[in-house]
């Protein structure tokens, strides 16, 4: 190694210094001489599109990967991190993008795992519980320590992850896209926790795609693109637009442009729809709505107010207990999902992994799922491989699914590209153009480049005369895409508004159940007695 001019620079005011980090994967250079500096006690954002190399960089800090070259200093001291054990020793903790929890063990078992309090050779459960309880109180991380992981919400699971690293005494906390899986409310709670942690002297590295989150909580931002750092800046000196440009490498529309809708005839009408949830309680209580060709109807609401069950009833995945769903004059209530598809309703489900694709199948099969029995994809009971290959090659190109490899297993695509694949399949007009699209959480976990792309696609489908029902927890998304907005609260529609006659704050109030913010639609009077 040649001697380094900066060898004697004092890094002691930095919690983390990563210098000239290079990480080469067989097919990609994931980190290309990355320099990353984090001041002690800061909340430092690391942003960049999917695949920019953020997780890879952090996995090296946590010892899961070893860099091909480069140096790491923790609190000014040069160190070699060979595995998570070393990282823990240096006071580094990581909340991974995909949670690392043992589903059938309890909260406290997960927290102490690997560093269990003992009594002789035995596990000291009493002490374990007590320590976890104390820790959760100290940092305001409310958890139910005796519950199993599989029985608690995603937000609580994340708190368990945070407790895990605090239990190990971490001072440098890495959060890898913690908000991607959270509802806006849970995100606010997480931010409170992060501020408290900072007040207790912890250093936090915060990875996200969401620029308003960067603006809300961080002091410094490092931006990565294609494995390189493209900038480091104080948060107060920047704005979302500039950050977006640094991330994507071109100007990005943070809000999609669209013309006024050209409304056609009524496509879908739902009247007095009642649906039960998994616990057999009423989740949708007498909802009425209509959608016209060429418009986007947005449904806003805090998660768990019946939106999911509503969508499932319309797409045939859940039984409608009462009421009617009429598509183009045909009563499709309680049709099977296949029959509903055949009637021209297409569906982009909220959970793409569970319902939108098959991870073990290659892209070309995923591109035809649900249409695979129709001509021209299959003929006389046999799949038409030649056509399927050509077709999916075309779609991968048209919808910008990366990499352009139809043989890749869907499970190996990044989240954004999985979503583009699902969007391609659902919105493409082979074998026939859909009449209506039910689109749930289309951009959950995606980066701004992919969001922009999917938003544009949705608008262009609208302009082709498709009626669109859009469900999203992201208010921004609802605001920028919808022509009309209906707010769900406790299974009922609490009001209908248009995006330009209402503010975010007002809609926030409606989502919390306040009816009088604006005029509300005429609803059937109290129909609670079902």
């Amino acid at each position, binding site marked *: 190694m040649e001697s380094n001019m900066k060898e004697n620079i004092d890094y002691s005011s930095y919690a983390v210094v990563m210098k000239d980090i290079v990480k080469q994967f067989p097919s990609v250079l994931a980190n290309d001489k990355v320099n990353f500096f984090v001041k002690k006690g800061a909340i430092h954002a690391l942003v960049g599109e999917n695949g920019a190399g953020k997780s890879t960089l952090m996995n090296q800090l946590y010892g899961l*990967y070893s860099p091909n070259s480069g140096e790491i200093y923790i609190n000014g001291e040069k160190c070699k991190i060979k595995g*998570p054990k070393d990282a823990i020793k240096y006071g580094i903790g990581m909340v991974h993008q995909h949670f*690392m929890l043992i589903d059938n*063990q309890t909260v406290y078992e997960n927290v102490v795992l*690997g560093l269990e309090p003992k009594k002789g050779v035995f596990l000291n459960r009493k002490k374990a519980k007590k320590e976890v309880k104390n820790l959760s109180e100290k940092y305001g991380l409310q958890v139910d320590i005796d519950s199993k992981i599989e029985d608690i919400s995603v937000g609580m699971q994340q708190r368990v992850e945070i407790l895990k690293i605090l239990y190990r005494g971490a001072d440098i906390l890495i959060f890898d896209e913690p908000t991607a899986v959270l509802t806006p409310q849970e995100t606010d709670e997480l931010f409170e926790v992060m501020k408290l942690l900072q007040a207790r002297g912890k250093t936090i590295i915060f990875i996200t795609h969401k620029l308003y989150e960067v603006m809300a909580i961080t002091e410094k931002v490092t931006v990565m693109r294609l494995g390189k750092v493209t900038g480091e800046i104080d948060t107060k000196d920047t704005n979302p637009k500039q950050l977006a440009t640094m991330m994507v490498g071109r100007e990005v529309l943070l809000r999609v442009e669209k013309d006024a809708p050209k409304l056609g005839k009524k496509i879908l009408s739902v009247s007095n729809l009642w649906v039960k949830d998994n616990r057999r309680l009423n989740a949708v209580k007498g909802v009425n709505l209509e959608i016209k060709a060429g418009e986007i109807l947005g449904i806003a609401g805090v998660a768990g107010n019946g939106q999911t069950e509503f969508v499932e009833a319309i797409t045939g995945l859940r039984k409608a207990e009462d009421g009617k769903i009429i598509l183009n004059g045909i009563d499709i209530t309680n049709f099977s999902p296949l029959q509903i598809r055949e009637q021209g309703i297409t569906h982009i489900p909220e959970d793409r992994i569970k319902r939108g694709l098959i991870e073990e199948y290659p892209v070309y099969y995923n591109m035809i799922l649900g249409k695979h029995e129709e001509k021209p994809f299959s003929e006389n009971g046999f799949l038409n491989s030649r056509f399927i290959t050509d077709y999916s090659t075309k779609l991968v190109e048209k919808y910008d699914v990366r990499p352009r490899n139809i043989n890749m297993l869907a499970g190996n695509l990044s989240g954004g590209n999985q979503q583009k694949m699902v969007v391609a399949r659902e919105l493409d007009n082979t074998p026939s153009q859909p009449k209506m699209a039910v689109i749930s959480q289309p951009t959950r976990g995606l980066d701004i480049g992919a969001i922009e792309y999917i938003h544009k696609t949705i608008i262009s489908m609208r302009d082709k005369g498709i009626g669109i029902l859009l469900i999203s927890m992201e208010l921004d998304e609802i605001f920028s895409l919808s022509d009309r907005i209906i707010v769900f609260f406790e299974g009922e529609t609490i009001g209908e508004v248009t995006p330009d006659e209402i503010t975010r704050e007002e809609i926030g109030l409606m989502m919390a159940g306040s009816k009088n913010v604006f005029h509300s639609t005429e609803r059937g009077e109290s129909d609670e007695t079902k």
Partner: protein
Amino acid sequence: MSWIEAIFNILVNPLFYQMALLSATPLIFASIGGTFSEKTGVTNIALEGIMLMGAFISIVFTYLTGNPWIGILMAVVVGVGFTWFHAWASIRWCADQIVSGTALNIIALGLTAFLMKPIFGNEGRTDFIGRVQNVKLEFLKDVPFIGDIFYDLSPFVYLALISVLFSWILFYRTPLGLRMAAVGENPEAADTLGINVFGTRYFGVLTGSIFASLGGAFLSVGELGSFGENMIHGRGFIALAAMILGNWNPVGALLASLLFGAAEAMNLQLQSSSIISVPNTVKPLFNMLPFIITLIVVGGFVGKSRSPAADGAPYEKKA
């Protein structure tokens, strides 16, 4: 009518319970062995083969040394070595665990059959070589019923019960048990906490093989005192069913093994009942009783038991 009478007669006879216990003993050992392995995430379909090796090696060394305890010790040593191939292939090389387990079963069958002639001079079944003395609990001698069941039993029976207790404590009362479950449930998560995934899996598979070997040794030096070709006769697979039915919990495995043992005992007793006569042509059907119960029970209950989430899934470490 005579059937009900026959069954009733069997149920009031302490001999039935003793036979059930003895039939259950190899299943208890092997199902605990399987649980050790699968708890850490390695499927072990090779129980049958490991048991066969255990039965064979213990007889061989009893034959050579005259001491059945040395035979048992060697059965365990060789059993661990033999199973190491499966562990190594599935953990180190991420091989298909069903394939490597099946390979072990086939090798055990072929190897033991092949070695019989050079070692013992005859094929099929050996002469009586020697067996472990039974334990006589004098204080139970004159106790009615209970004494008839427990007075005179192989020490293997007690060893099996101790194994249940031992493994239950290990699994649910020690940090190691917590870690084993973590590795079998989500190895990546365990890895990020600095737990040695590979080491824990080797421990699970190899410790499990100790129990499976003991189960095999019981059948030869614990019971018959001789070895016969393919003498495990599917018990390794019934033990797998007991492990599943017992929901990967040693106490559950014990209860499931007792159920299968009772089925086996009932079968044997019915065939020798003096009240009814089972025609020779139907006897093979009776012999299927434990397997049929296995099928019904596994078919009916598997949905309710929950296997370790990463069971059978190799873990590849990152670069």
